[in-house]
């Protein structure tokens, strides 16, 4: 045997005893009902439109200070870079995508490293996102009591009407709500320890109807996170032209497309390539535009033509100085 044949034999043999269980039923159950997904997409689009309207009202009503908290930095790079006096942490929120609700990361300032877990999880539960397209899946009245990493246990203690699954909440939404906190807690704690959930300081069999007897592990990023995310610039930020847009995308053939919208008109458009195809991978591109107020739309390619998943996108309102 030459060494190539030896290697072939070695690898063939290494997995020769792997007999996977049938996965066809599981795949089928997740690929049927494209029409349902199409409906979900229009509903999602409607939600986005509504959120955008609310955002406009909020800004006009003088509540713009919420997004003003991320404007302290000198632009997109400054707004995400941790500083000594006020560290930033990643908080996950729920937003709509073509494939249904998914998690979007957003950078948030916290008052100190010691308070990072409590404050970040509080923001996640309360849905205090800068981007009006993002929200929390936790019902009104949910309180974040304490989050800590102690003796190797990463725990999140919640209060309020959250043990059972609220009417009108699907299992998928409930599971995503838990993942929202698992992802946030693990990112802030710099740890992949599964999260132990408590209710009013005691272990609880369920939260939102999902089992929480065992600590909850993070789901696969490709299933849980939004397939197109803009990390910078953050929503509502003011930038100088040209500015750099960064984020992550799991896009077909790694193609990422973008438009800079002025009202409903496209002021600029372009495309770039994420570092890898088909799994969340970083992308970045530069945009040059005259001063003005824009909405940046970043999305994957609409290759589906109505079959399969519609495109996924993330939008950010940006002022170019």
């Amino acid at each position, binding site marked *: 045997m030459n060494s190539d044949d030896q290697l072939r034999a070695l690898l063939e043999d290494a997995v020769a005893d792997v007999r996977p269980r049938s996965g066809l039923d599981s795949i*089928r159950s997740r690929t049927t009902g494209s029409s349902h997904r199409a409906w979900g997409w229009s509903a999602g689009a409607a939600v986005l439109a509504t959120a955008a309207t609310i955002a406009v009202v909020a800004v006009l009503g003088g509540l713009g200070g919420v997004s003003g908290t991320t404007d302290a930095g000198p632009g997109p790079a400054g707004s995400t870079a941790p500083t000594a006096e006020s560290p930033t942490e990643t908080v996950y929120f729920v937003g709509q995508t073509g494939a249904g609700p998914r998690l979007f990361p957003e950078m948030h300032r916290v008052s100190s490293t010691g308070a990072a877990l409590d404050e970040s999880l509080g923001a996640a539960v309360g849905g205090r996102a800068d981007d009006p397209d993002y929200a929390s899946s936790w019902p009104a009245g949910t309180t974040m009591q304490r989050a800590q990493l102690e003796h190797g246990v990463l725990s999140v203690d919640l209060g309020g009407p959250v043990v059972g699954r609220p009417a009108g909440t699907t299992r998928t939404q409930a599971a995503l709500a838990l993942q929202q906190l698992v992802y946030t807690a693990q990112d802030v704690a710099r740890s992949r320890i599964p999260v132990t959930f408590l209710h009013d300081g005691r272990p609880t069999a369920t939260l939102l109807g999902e089992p929480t007897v065992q600590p909850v592990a993070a789901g696969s*990023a490709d299933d849980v996170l939004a397939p197109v995310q803009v990390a910078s610039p953050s929503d509502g930020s003011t930038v100088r032209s040209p500015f750099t847009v960064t984020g992550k995308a799991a896009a077909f053939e790694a193609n990422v497309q973008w438009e800079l919208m002025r009202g409903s008109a496209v002021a600029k458009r372009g495309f770039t390539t994420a570092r890898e195809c088909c799994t969340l991978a970083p992308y970045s591109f530069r945009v040059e535009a005259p001063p003005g107020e824009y909405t940046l739309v970043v999305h994957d390619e609409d290759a589906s033509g109505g079959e399969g998943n519609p495109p996924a996108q993330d939008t950010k309102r940006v002022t170019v100085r």
Partner: protein
Amino acid sequence: MTLRKPGTTKAVSQGGGWDADAAVEELYAAHYRRLVRLSVLLVRDVETAEEVVQDSFVAMHGRWRSLREPDKALAYLRQTVVNRSRSVLRHRGVRAAYAPPPPRDQSGADEDALASERRASVLDALRGLPDRQREVLALRYYLDLSEADIAQTLGISRGAVKSHASRGVAALRSLMEDVS
């Protein structure tokens, strides 16, 4: 059957094209097991590999409109399985490190025990390699892909494929002596 040359192409041209559901069924029948085994070479854990491959089929179904041809669909599946296997390793670092070895025949015969040990040592050796080396070895020696196909699947240059392959082969050399 190799993944490079799907034996199903003919049925397609005769049938005038599949829809997304038919593509899943056909490609599943022809390639599911081999893709799971490919993923096991990359992530070690069988259950994780099953999940990765099932997710990849679901993703392929969603993209069928832009794939349409079985060759393209298969290339997409391969690429998705490799990339997702890598991202699972990154995201589930802890779980992968403590993943139990794949289930084996527990008949107890010495020869089986030896085979199990040998398999485990190959999978362990692969897990010890950098991602790219492991991927290049699996694509080249398990799927029998050409250098050009590997370069395309991994999104790296052919030169990089060569250098990853030669380093990977060197790392596994001691194991190869055991099976020669």
